[in-house]
């Protein structure tokens, strides 16, 4: 099937347009359209995975067509071992988030239109091989996100939406500058990511450092790394459940994806130079995030800050620039965090729907009242705190194993994060699920079938990757090895 | 004096007299009736000028439609009390002066100008030539006028439609200064 990636990217957009033409009060119809428009890319993802040849680091499913010939801008798509897992994660989470969104009743039509547009943007970012296209999709994603938070969000939604938007835009500007710099320093002027990677050895050290820093700021805000993270708790807390899922599950990965796709292969020298600072940032993020989590009283905020902590692992893994294990660990963490945090946000949404509060102290003894929900929640919390047998452990272990030979003390400090993570999550579990029944737990109803359906695939994948990580590592290994070779540490 | 001259002078007298009454009559309804008379006279002039089609159109449009609209407007806006108010403004003397001056200017110019009188025969038939011209040489203006009429139609409906108007009258217009009121009285 030719144009597989294009179909994946634009099917949701078509769905959005179709949805816009539907009568706005027919919620069932619009939900049906959203269901189909997210299910089809998911099915295509299965085809993609089936057709993907994991034995090579080459870009596959490449589509290339001249777009703006005057600027040498091409419509250039392709997927490799880094992109394929992300695409799969995106389509899966989008589909599940659409299911989760079925309880939205406010302005349903616009909601799903924005939602589908967002999916298009995300898929586009993960498969663009041209900076222009990449940037366009990067920004396309922002707008629906802004509205999704700003319209369907919580009490401080406007603040959160604007903060998210401006902050990310602030980062994008740096990226734009760097992209322009790349464009004008290349002869002939090119925006092709592949071509820039090929000319990486010719770039001067100074230019590499400059471009790396600029890209890094853009991506670091998205990840988010330590000093740039404050938009995340706000956005997460205010966003509606499904949007939080996508925000945590997919959008955060764009930062790390961008680093792996753009910064690392394109500026190897700078990458080597900045490896240690990245590791420091990552470890600081791990510890800091975990400690701030400990002080949270809002469940959703806790999960949000835990993302800061968990994305720190990604950064540490990436900092091990010469280690296949480290970068693979980063990839694993991206996927694993997407699955786990997506599920956690869904679960937070489940109780928020029922109790209309997320205060940890408002609950107690939920395991007695809602055992199935509690069981699922505890399973994912365990996944998040890195219990062996679940995907989180594999990624953390890979990250540590990969990074330890390079930054021994730093990583050793980072390992403490495992303990701190356990501390805040267990504290949360104890307060909410254990002990006598208290507060809002009293009237809770059990998680319903639709929500279980939305969670189950995540649980299965989490366990599958945790038990047999080769499922994923086989996909990414050649690409990562190639990446390591390009960095040449 | 031949019949044409007779007819012309009769019509000219009719038109001018009616026109003067139009502008000076105190009763606006009378003005309208005189206007109809004047327009009818103009139609007669058209006949004299061998434009019978135009004459019929003149009657049909001016008498049948425009005057009717005028009368309607008068009936819809006139109040008995209005008849006591002075029907002209304070520009009468100056206006007269200017009008006469204008007349003098125009007439002087007319008599000074040598016109290229042609003795070609007028085309036969009532409106055939006119119709052909309208649909060939003047097709574009013709269509534009059609659009104009449509626009005027819609515009008039929109403007005059009751719903577009607030029912309660606005604050009355700034009253005239006392002195002006006296003059008016």
């Amino acid at each position, binding site marked *: 099937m030719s144009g597989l990636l294009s179909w994946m990217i634009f099917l949701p957009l078509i769905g959005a347009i179709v949805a816009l033409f539907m009568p706005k009060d027919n919620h069932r119809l619009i939900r049906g359209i959203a269901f189909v428009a997210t299910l089809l890319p998911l099915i295509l993802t299965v085809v993609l995975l089936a057709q993907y040849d994991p034995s090579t680091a080459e870009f596959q499913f490449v589509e290339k067509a001249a777009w703006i010939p005057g600027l040498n801008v091409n419509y250039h798509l392709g997927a490799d071992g880094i992109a394929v897992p992300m695409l799969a994660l995106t389509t899966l989470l989008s589909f599940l988030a659409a299911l989760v969104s079925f309880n939205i009743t406010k302005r349903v039509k616009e909601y799903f239109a924005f939602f589908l547009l967002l999916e298009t943007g995300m898929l586009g970012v993960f498969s663009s091989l041209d900076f222009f296209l990449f940037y366009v999709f990067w920004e396309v994603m922002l707008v629906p996100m802004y509205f999704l938070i700003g319209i369907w969000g919580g009490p401080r939604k406007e603040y959160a939406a604007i903060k998210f938007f401006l902050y990310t835009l602030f980062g994008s500007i740096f990226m734009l500058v760097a992209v322009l710099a790349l464009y004008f320093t290349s002869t002939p002027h090119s925006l092709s990511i592949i071509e820039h990677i090929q000319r990486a050895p010719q770039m001067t050290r100074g230019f590499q450092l400059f471009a790396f820093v600029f890209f890094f700021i853009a991506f670091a805000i998205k990840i988010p790394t330590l000093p740039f993270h404050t938009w995340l708790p706000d956005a997460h807390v205010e966003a509606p459940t499904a949007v939080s899922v996508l925000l945590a599950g997919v959008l955060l990965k764009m930062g790390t994806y961008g680093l792996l796709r753009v910064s690392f292969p394109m500026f190897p020298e700078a990458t080597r130079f900045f490896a240690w600072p990245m590791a420091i940032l990552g470890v600081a993020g791990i510890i800091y995030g975990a400690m701030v989590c400990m002080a949270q009283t809002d469940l959703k905020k806790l999960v949000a800050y835990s993302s800061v902590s968990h994305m720190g692992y990604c950064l540490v893994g990436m900092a091990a620039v010469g280690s296949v294990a480290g970068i693979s660990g980063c990839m694993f963490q991206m996927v694993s965090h997407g699955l786990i945090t997506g599920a956690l946000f869904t679960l937070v949404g489940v109780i928020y729907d029922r109790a209309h509060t997320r205060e940890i102290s408002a609950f107690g003894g939920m395991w007695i009242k809602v055992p199935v929900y509690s069981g699922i929640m505890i399973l994912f919390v365990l996944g998040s705190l890195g219990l062996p047998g679940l995907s989180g452990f594999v990624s953390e272990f890979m990250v540590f194993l990969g990074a330890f030979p390079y930054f021994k003390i730093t990583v050793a400090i980072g390992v403490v994060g495992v303990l701190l993570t356990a501390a805040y999550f267990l504290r949360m579990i104890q307060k909410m699920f254990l002990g006598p029944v208290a507060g809002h737990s009293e009237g809770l109803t059990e998680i319903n079938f639709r929500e279980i359906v939305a969670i189950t695939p995540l649980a299965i994948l989490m366990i599958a990757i945790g038990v047999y990580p080769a499922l994923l590592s086989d996909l990414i290994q050649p690409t990562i090895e190639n990446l390591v070779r390009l960095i040449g540490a | 004096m031949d019949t044409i001259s007779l007819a012309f002078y009769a019509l000219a007298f009719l038109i001018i007299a009616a026109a003067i009454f139009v502008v000076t009559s105190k009763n606006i309804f*009378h003005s309208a009736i005189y206007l109809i008379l004047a327009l009818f006279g103009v139609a007669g002039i058209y006949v004299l000028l061998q434009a019978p089609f135009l004459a019929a159109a003149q009657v049909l449009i001016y008498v049948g439609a425009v005057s*009717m609209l005028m009368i*309607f407007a008068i009936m819809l806006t006139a109040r008995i009390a209005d008849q006591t108010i002075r029907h002209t403004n304070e520009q009468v003397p100056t206006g007269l002066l200017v009008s006469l001056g204008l007349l003098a200017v125009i007439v002087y110019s007319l008599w000074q100008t040598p016109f290229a009188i042609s003795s070609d025969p007028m085309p036969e038939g*009532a409106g055939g030539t006119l119709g052909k011209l309208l649909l060939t040489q003047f097709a574009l203006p013709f269509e534009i006028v059609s659009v104009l009429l449509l626009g005027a139609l819609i515009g008039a409906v929109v403007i005059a439609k009751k719903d577009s108007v607030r029912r309660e009258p606005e604050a009355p217009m700034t009253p005239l200064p006392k002195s002006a009121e006296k003059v008016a009285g």
Partner: protein
Amino acid sequence: MLELDKLVKLVGDGIEAVVTALGLGPTWVTLVQLIVAALVVVVFAALVVLFLVWWERKVSARFQMRLGPMRVGWHGTIQTIADALKLLQKELITPANVDRGIYFWAPVVTFVAAMAVYVTVPFGKGLIVRDLNIGILYILSITTFTVIGLLMAGWSSNNKYALLGGFRSAAQVVSYEVPMALAIVAVVMLTQTLSMGEIVSQQAKFYQWYIWRQPLGFLIYLVAATAECNRTPFDLPEADSELVAGFVTEYSGMKFAMFFLAEFLNMFTVAAIATTLFFGGWNGPFLPSWMWFLIKTLAGVFVLMWFRWTYPRLRVDQLMSFAWKFLLPLAFINIVLTGLGIYIFRP
């Protein structure tokens, strides 16, 4: 038998001879001929109206299973003359506070307008006062004066019923004039001429009648014309149950008679135009042409009377929306269809 056209020619020639003998030019000949013709037409019109009034009463009576006037003359034939004499004898009342000049002129305008139409109506072969080359257009424009008369009457009477009647009449006539004119335009598209005489001569044979090519046009014309002459079901301007007698409320005597005359003349005019445009005018076998004309026209008048006793009166808003929202589009469609037909069957 009764070759009226020859008589007319004879009279015309006689006048020419007399005037020329008096030493006057051809202009005067024409003038005198016209004056005589006008007089003849006026007399004819008066006779027609006398007949029509009687006929209307008889027809109405028959529709209502009555006998109608029976006493004066055979079957009341001269009842109308008696009524007319009564009217002429009546005092001319001029109510106070009327706008005298206009009050006076209103019936005159109406009557004159109604009469002026007959200048170009072809009563029979050669029986036409002046076959104007703008004939039908002339008739259309002159009939508008009728409305002016009505408005003048309504305004000057200083009576709200009269005013309202005038209003309604004007609105109605202006509105229905548009579809009527368009229906006539469709015919004119076929005839390629405005002259009444030529239109009639184009319909020499039965199958050449324009009714066959303009059935829709005829229907539109019939409806619009009925409204034009304020006949039921379009008699809102003088709806006695609503407005006393409409614009004629304040009139009496001779002035009232003039309105009355004008109304019946209009009815006759409408039928005459229909005859001319759609039914072949005076063309017909065996009988003299003027008789054919009268037969066809009176049949038309009978149809109008028939309407009167068949249809209830419309409400005023229905009246307007019927004209603008139904008849007018229909007339446009008719024109388009006619144009298409001309294009398709062009030689």
